[in-house]
């Protein structure tokens, strides 16, 4: 097991309607975030990944967001969006070269999926592969935006199992946007609801 990079810490982050968001997520902890659509869940994740202009400060362990080159920060604090985009011809073109592939079988893929053309992927396959391609870059923290929205129940269970095991093994802090109360119950140690401009502990 490798040394963890440390906690993900938000200090007085403000973006869009949200203000004064302060939160610490220690390694291996999964924090779920829920709220109406338009309440700013995705924007908060984007601010933490530094994709949107925002106020406040974010740390990963001792590393501060604003002191790290943006692309290195995003390699560490990895945002997996609700809808993944695929720009190249084949699945493998979206993965780092020469990666040891974790999780293919656990998420229900044969190894030959890497040679598939992107155009034949279903939305569920895209969602599972998007998580795999993010994890293949060995991030130090995860920001997940409804990672199981397009999956059937069986795949949801498989993904949760694999993901939680990987989170424990790699000691990642995780901020997980989720809707269904069952899922939040299953995966989260803490749960916050976004309402108005702040987080409400549930």
């Amino acid at each position, binding site marked *: 097991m490798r040394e963890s990079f440390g906690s993900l810490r938000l200090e007085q982050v403000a973006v869009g309607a949200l203000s004064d968001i302060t939160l610490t997520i220690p390694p291996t902890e999964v924090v779920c975030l829920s709220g109406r659509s338009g309440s700013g869940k995705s924007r908060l994740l984007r601010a933490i*990944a*530094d*994709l*949107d*202009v925002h106020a406040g400060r974010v740390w990963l362990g001792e590393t501060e967001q*604003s002191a790290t*080159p*943006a*692309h*290195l920060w*995003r*390699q560490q604090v*990895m*945002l*997996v*969006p609700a*809808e*993944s*985009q695929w*720009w190249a011809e084949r699945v493998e073109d979206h993965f780092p070269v020469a990666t040891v592939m974790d999780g293919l079988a656990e998420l229900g893929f044969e190894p030959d999926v890497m040679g598939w053309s992107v155009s034949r992927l279903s939305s569920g396959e895209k969602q599972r592969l998007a998580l795999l*391609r*993010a994890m293949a*870059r060995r991030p130090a923290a995860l920001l997940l935006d409804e990672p199981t929205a397009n999956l059937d129940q069986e795949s949801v269970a498989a993904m949760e199992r694999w993901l939680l095991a990987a989170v424990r093994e790699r000691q990642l802090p995780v901020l997980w946007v989720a809707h269904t109360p069952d899922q939040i119950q299953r995966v989260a140690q803490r749960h916050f609801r976004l309402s108005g401009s702040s987080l409400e502990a549930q």
Partner: protein
Amino acid sequence: MEVIDLAWWKLALAASMILVLAVFVHLGRLGITRGLLIAAIRTVIQLSLIGLVLEALFAVSGFGWIALMATVMLLVAGREVMSRQQRKLTGGWAFGIGTGAMFLSSFTVTVLTLIVVIGPEPWYAPQYAIPLLGMMLGNTMNGVALSLDRLTESVWRQRSVIENRLMLGQTWREAVGDIRREAMRSGMIPSINAMAAAGIVSLPGMMTGQILAGSPPSVAVKYQILIMLTIAIGTGSGALMAVTWGSRRLFDDRQRLRLDRLLEPS
């Protein structure tokens, strides 16, 4: 060899043929009559006026006047580049980047060509400087306008792809790499095609004009080669600068995609 001057009534003959074409297009309900007529009228008026201006300019031949003329040409070209873009950069950047790229590329290449290659006395002699600059600017303008338009339009269309690539930890350069290549390509394709077809499919306008004006074809050909090469250099470097500066402007210092720096098409 003396050039045959064209009488105005002979031009009127050509103009009447445009009218005949316009009538047929109109009868066929093909819908471009108005545009055709307006463009024809503009050509006549604009070229007649520039003829007067050039006559005056050749007569005085002062550096200040030629520089003024060159500046006016550049600003008009800058405006044209801006107006040809669907999604402009905000805050004067559309005009600034286009004009800056055209200034650096076409002026540098023109001045170099005048001083080093052609060498008239003085180097800014308007008979050489103005037509050369005009041709450079016209072509560079096309290259810059095409590449900038392609760049901003593709970035806007593919915004989610670019952001997803950023999320995966790519630098902004990697994330827009494909789009930059496409934009560069669409800016350069016209001059590459023109070079490839020159002399076989098409006799370029300048060479034709020079031959009509009585130059020996061997001289006209040398000038044409010079012009086509310099046009390719000017267009290429202009498009290169426009794509580099334009794409840089679409990201901020934290490598965020800033679509708020693009105006919606009007």
